[in-house]
């Protein structure tokens, strides 16, 4: 062998033991791994163990039950019923948003299908709904809608929304929500293939309802900002079938859970809704407020939204328990760690001072009596002309107004006239309406475009009403297109339109356009989405855009349509018979009664039928929302200041608002002209009328302006000051002392008292001096303060003008029924002014009292006993004069009040009283807004007293029919 080669070979083999290289290689690989393990397990082991615990364990909330609400006798007013809810959480892991969209949308669709198949549906607290024509629309307006838009577009504040977002239509929002930017139901890039859709069970095309349902589920999921393991509730009160079907499919529906839940149930909702309120899912603004005090609130919390439910939220709310569970990769619970479970604590129960039976009875009595008044004033007199009425006691309701009210207050659903299953009558009404609409719009269009438009004052009443609606309602309050803040109120053209009425609508709007009073972006953005708001338009272009906008959008405006119906009724294009037939067709009245056949055969006239239905309370004052349609009564125990009843008529069914809100019902209530959400007992303030005369009495006696023996002579008018003041009893009461003055509620007597109070040292009358003294005593009775009731109350106002008017309860006096109730409570117990209260006590779930609420005493009045005697005697005398209170079986003391606030509407009926006279057990204040005369309020009080003191069988009082006996429209005070 060649030496060189051998050396080379030796060199190679000697110096390179190749298997040894492999040994080193293997050792290095093992070293790398062991080093890695050392790093993972020893150096960072502990942190991995912690993060491991986070991925595998999750804490779940065990919902506590909300406390019940009881009346003073332990009758249940609000309680919880066991139910099942469906929650969902996003526990999946996805490659891409595309895949996430596909899978979540598919799952939402499958859930929706299961619910639909079992007669359930998803909760609908989303504010986009399908309207009757199957189009997307909003079910809320105004601020709530803007807030919703901000939530959808992910803005914290409404102000952060762009104009386009703020003005987005429901369709535009749905386009956004279904787009791939949001929930990816439709994709422009890389659309889902049929196989992909099939794999998650999605059909190729979705109906609008299905799209909406999927978007709703995705939206609810998105509210947790996709935090894993935060479940959101998407359906409540599931049927047993749904529960079974969902449980069966649970393995295929990642992240769903069926949880035991409770739904809130209210007994006697109508009578109690105004004070109890209702619960609902927390709103974002409310959430931040609540979280500030209690961090356990989440976006899924059910909280009190109004009334006692809201006020006693912290008492009623239980504390949720917590459960630590181990989950697998899919979020499926493997095991519950019992050692870490915190049991939920049920909320405390709240006992109200309210007497449930009394509250219920009072509600019924109010409805019966109000219906009685209403029934009495409906007339069928074609010659009745409201413009000729000088005394409000003569105001009557022509039957045509009732028919109009039936349409205006949506007793009839006018949108149903055009639907496919409309009855023959409905179709006929619709075709008359179409004709009417066409002719009115032609006329309006002509007015807007012709060269010689007619000045407002030259128009017919009908056209005037349409044009007023266009400007005031449509352009200003509804849309804000005509921006009231930009209008120069001293401008000559403005005054020519509003005050002088000498120019035409066309002239006014053309001028408004030239003055930049028109919000151009509003008319262009909804006109065509392409134009950006800043394109320059000259004033003639603006005017033509505006008139096009009016013509186009007014046709969809329901209120304007109702206005057309009003004139159709006035002009005889729509008859009462048609209205009544439509009511039968729409099921407002049942055809299974004798009235129907009598009406159809012509044996019963329209007005008789309507009156009969009002009498049977099948058509309630609240439904018609004519005057009167509302009333309130607040009853207290004068010895304790506890409120025994606090009723506002009309009420509403809070069961339909709690839990899953019935949005359609909510909207109906919100739009209802009888304003059921407006608490007539705590929110409505009116002049107290003559009930105020006890303040005047106190002032007169205590200030020494009069004594109990001072007399004044009433000849029907008080003319020491100008303008003079008439007594309600025109012939005059003659000579009266203070008790007689009270007994007859003599205006002249109390005007004299006020006059005496205002006499200064020089012996001349000073209005401000008198007023100051009256105010002092009104304040002594704490009429300037909240009554103490726990639910929100409107602020009272002690009159600060016109001493003479003030003395008889007019002036600018304005109080709620609750404030009058406190006043009469103070009168009844001769001087203890309680902060009247609804709350009795709170107990824990085992019945142990955790808090006792005792009405606090705001002040004790230092008033002499002679004054008290005069007051009580006077109040007693008032009742002794009342024929309807004769032989009642109990001695009552009270004071009537008839407060006139409008010349075109009936006066308010007020009455305060206490009983029994010698040893008062209850005190009450009753008010019927626009109830004509105090007599009507005294009748309500009489019924209540009879009920409360068992003076007659309750079936004689709670008849379920309108009470017309003794009702009056006669102006008696």
């Amino acid at each position, binding site marked *: 062998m060649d030496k060189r080669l051998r050396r080379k070979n030796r060199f190679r083999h000697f110096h*390179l033991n*190749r298997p040894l290289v492999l040994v080193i290689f293997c050792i290095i*690989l093992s070293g790398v791994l062991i080093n890695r393990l050392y790093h993972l397990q020893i150096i960072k082991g502990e942190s991995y163990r912690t993060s491991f615990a986070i991925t595998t364990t999750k804490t779940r909330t065990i919902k506590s039950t909300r406390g019940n609400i009881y009346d003073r006798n332990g009758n249940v007013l609000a309680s919880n019923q066991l139910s099942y809810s469906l929650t969902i959480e996003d526990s999946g892991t996805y490659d891409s948003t595309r895949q996430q969209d596909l899978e979540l949308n598919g799952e939402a669709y499958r859930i929706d299908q299961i619910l639909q198949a079992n007669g359930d549906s998803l909760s609908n607290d989303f504010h986009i709904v399908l309207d009757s024509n199957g189009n997307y629309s909003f079910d809320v307006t105004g601020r709530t809608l803007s807030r919703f838009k901000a939530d959808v577009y992910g803005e914290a504040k409404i102000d952060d929304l762009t104009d386009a977002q703020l003005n987005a239509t429901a369709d535009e929002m749905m386009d956004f929500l279904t787009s791939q930017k949001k929930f990816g139901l439709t994709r422009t890039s890389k659309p889902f293939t049929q196989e992909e859709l099939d794999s998650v069970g999605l059909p190729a095309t979705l109906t609008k309802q299905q799209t909406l349902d999927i978007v709703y589920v995705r939206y609810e999921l998105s509210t947790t900002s996709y935090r894993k393991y935060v479940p959101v509730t998407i359906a409540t009160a599931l049927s047993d079938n749904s529960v079974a079907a969902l449980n069966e499919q649970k393995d295929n529906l990642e992240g769903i859970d069926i949880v035991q839940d409770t739904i809130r149930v209210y007994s006697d909702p109508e009578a109690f809704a105004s004070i109890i309120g209702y619960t609902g899912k927390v709103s974002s603004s409310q959430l931040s407020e609540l979280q500030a005090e209690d961090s356990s609130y989440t976006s899924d919390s059910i909280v009190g939204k109004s009334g006692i439910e809201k006020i006693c939220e912290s008492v009623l709310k239980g504390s949720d328990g917590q459960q630590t569970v181990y989950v697998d990769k899919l979020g499926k619970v493997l095991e519950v760690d019992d050692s870490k479970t915190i049991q939920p604590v049920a909320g405390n129960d709240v006992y109200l001072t309210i007497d449930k039976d009394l509250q219920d009875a009072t509600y019924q009595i109010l409805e019966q009596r109000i219906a009685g008044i209403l029934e009495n004033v409906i007339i069928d007199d074609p010659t009745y002309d409201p413009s000729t009425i000088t005394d409000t006691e003569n105001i009557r309701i022509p039957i045509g107004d009732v028919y109009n009210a039936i349409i205006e207050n949506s007793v009839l659903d006018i949108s149903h006239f055009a639907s496919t299953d409309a009855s023959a009558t409905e179709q006929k009404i619709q075709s008359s309406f179409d004709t009417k609409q066409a002719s009115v719009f032609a006329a309006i269009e002509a007015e807007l475009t012709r060269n010689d438009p007619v000045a407002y004052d030259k128009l017919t009443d009908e056209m005037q009403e349409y044009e007023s609606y266009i400007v005031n309602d449509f352009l200003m309050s509804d849309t804000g297109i005509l921006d009231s803040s930009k209008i120069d109120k001293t401008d000559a053209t403005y005054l020519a339109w509003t005050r002088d009425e000498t120019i035409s609508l066309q002239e006014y709007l053309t001028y408004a356009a030239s003055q930049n009073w028109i919000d151009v972006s509003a008319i262009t953005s909804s006109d065509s989405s392409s134009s950006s708001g800043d394109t320059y338009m000259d004033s003639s272009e603006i005017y033509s855009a505006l008139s096009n906008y009016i013509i186009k959008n007014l046709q969809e405006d329901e209120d304007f349509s109702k206005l057309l119906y009003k004139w159709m009724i006035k002009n005889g294009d729509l008859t009462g018979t048609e209205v009544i037939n439509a009511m039968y067709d729409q099921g407002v009245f049942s055809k299974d009664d004798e009235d129907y056949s009598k009406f159809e055969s012509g044996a019963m006239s329209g007005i008789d039928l309507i009156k009969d239905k009002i009498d049977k309370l099948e058509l309630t004052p609240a439904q018609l929302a004519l005057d009167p349609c509302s009333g309130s009564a607040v009853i207290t125990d004068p010895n304790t200041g506890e409120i025994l009843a606090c009723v506002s008529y009309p009420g509403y069914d809070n069961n339909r608002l709690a839990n899953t809100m019935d949005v359609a019902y909510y909207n109906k209530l919100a739009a209802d002209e009888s304003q059921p959400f407006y608490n007539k007992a705590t929110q409505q303030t009116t002049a107290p009328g003559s009930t105020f005369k006890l303040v005047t009495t106190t002032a007169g006696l205590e200030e020494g302006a009069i004594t109990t023996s001072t007399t004044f002579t009433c000849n029907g008018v008080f003319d020491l000051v100008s303008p003079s003041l008439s007594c309600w009893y025109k012939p005059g009461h003659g000579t009266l002392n203070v008790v007689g003055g009270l007994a007859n509620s003599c205006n002249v007597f109390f005007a004299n008292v006020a006059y005496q109070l205002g006499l200064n040292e020089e012996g001349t009358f000073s209005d401000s001096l008198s007023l100051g003294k009256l105010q002092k005593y009104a304040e002594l009775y704490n009429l300037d303060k909240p009554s103490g009731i726990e639910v929100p109350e409107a602020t009272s106002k002690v009159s600060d003008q016109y001493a003479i008017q003030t003395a008889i309860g007019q002036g600018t006096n304005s109080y709620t029924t609750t404030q009058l109730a406190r006043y009469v409570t103070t009168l009844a117990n001769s001087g203890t002014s309680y902060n009247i209260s609804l709350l009795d006590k709170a107990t824990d779930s085992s019945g142990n009292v955790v808090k006792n609420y005792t009405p606090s005493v705001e002040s004790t009045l230092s008033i002499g006993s002679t004054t008290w005697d005069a007051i009580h005697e006077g109040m007693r005398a008032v009742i002794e004069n009342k024929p309807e209170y004769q032989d009642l079986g109990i001695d009552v003391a009270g004071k009537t009040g008839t407060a006139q606030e409008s010349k075109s509407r009936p006066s308010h009926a007020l009455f305060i009283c206490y009983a029994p006279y010698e040893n008062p057990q209850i005190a009450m204040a009753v008010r019927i807004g626009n109830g004509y005369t105090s007599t009507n309020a005294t009748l309500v009080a009489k019924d209540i007293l009879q009920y409360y003191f068992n003076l007659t069988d309750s079936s004689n009082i709670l008849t379920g029919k309108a009470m017309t006996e003794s009702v009056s429209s006669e102006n008696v005070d």
Partner: protein
Amino acid sequence: MLKQYRLRDYNFRLVLWVLALSVIGILLVGSAKASLQPRQTIGVIAGAVMMIIVSMFDFSWILNFYWILYVLNLGMLAAVLVFGNSSHGAQRWISIGGFTFQPAELSKIILIIFFAQYFMKHENDLNKPKIFIRSVLLIILPLALIIAQPDLKDTIIIFLLFAIMYFIAGLSLKTIGIILAIVIPAAVIFLFAVTQTDSSGNGLLKSYQRQRIMAFLNPNDSEYSDDSTQQDNSVIAIGSGELSGKGLNNSDVSSANKGNFISEIQTDFIFAVAGEELGFLGSAGIIILLLLIALECILTAMKAKNLSGTLICCGMAALISLQSFINIGVATKILPNTGTPLPFVSYGLTSLLSNFLGIGLVLNVSLQGKIRVTPRAARRKKTAL
């Protein structure tokens, strides 16, 4: 074919390491998925029996059939493509009488046998271009069939195995130098091009090209759709084992294993169970056992009677080391997610039996290696003839 062996020549140490590791494997598989434990036990017993049987056969006799084996291997790999079961977007399995069988696993052993013999035959002209090219062609054929499945990781493993065996056989440093001089810069440029191209398409490659390469590197099988989540969970599980682990078969429900946080945990992520339940001590122990097996193989290689024996042993050592490294590297997230079994530990009969088969061969090499026969000595002997 069968020879008379002396019992004291039997490498009981190797057998001990292998059996110890296999028992740990049975326990871990049982902990991962109790239902699979009996099958794994049967697999280990069958494998051990097979190992002992194979160890009795003269490996040189087996090597005589190397061309037949080579052709059989190609046939088998081709059969997968034609008849194989498609699963998770790849065609890697063949069903034989109710058993699924993964030819690529067996292929590794066959190729070790083939090249052990082939390189020995060409011991003296290994560095000639002709042989080099032939060798490369001989490995490319089966690799092409495996990559067609597609199975990138086995392609890489087998290629590395080939390279290591060629190196052990005596590929000259000059040739290695030339190869490296070409391959390394090319790879660097390629990787640079891939990684420097951002998704917007600025760079050497067009963005779609990059995407294709990236997609190729990360086959988007649904099997690995949640690749990194799985790896992250595995790392957390291993890390949470700390020093001594949570205990084998622990009843603690809060484990990655019980929580099903890692799919296919009994095969590709068995090491996550080891790390979590046995802790650093146990899992480092597994790595050391694997290293001991590899070292024992190499030690045997050094004592082998001829080059083919050396190559078989080194091939097995390399195979076990590489598979272990890739498996554990994936489980501890130092390598991208690709599923490969952990020798003797992971559930999977093909892999288990193939590895026992390979160790059987090594044992036989050991039995015949009493006389220290280094490759150099063998060559000297050959030249003397």
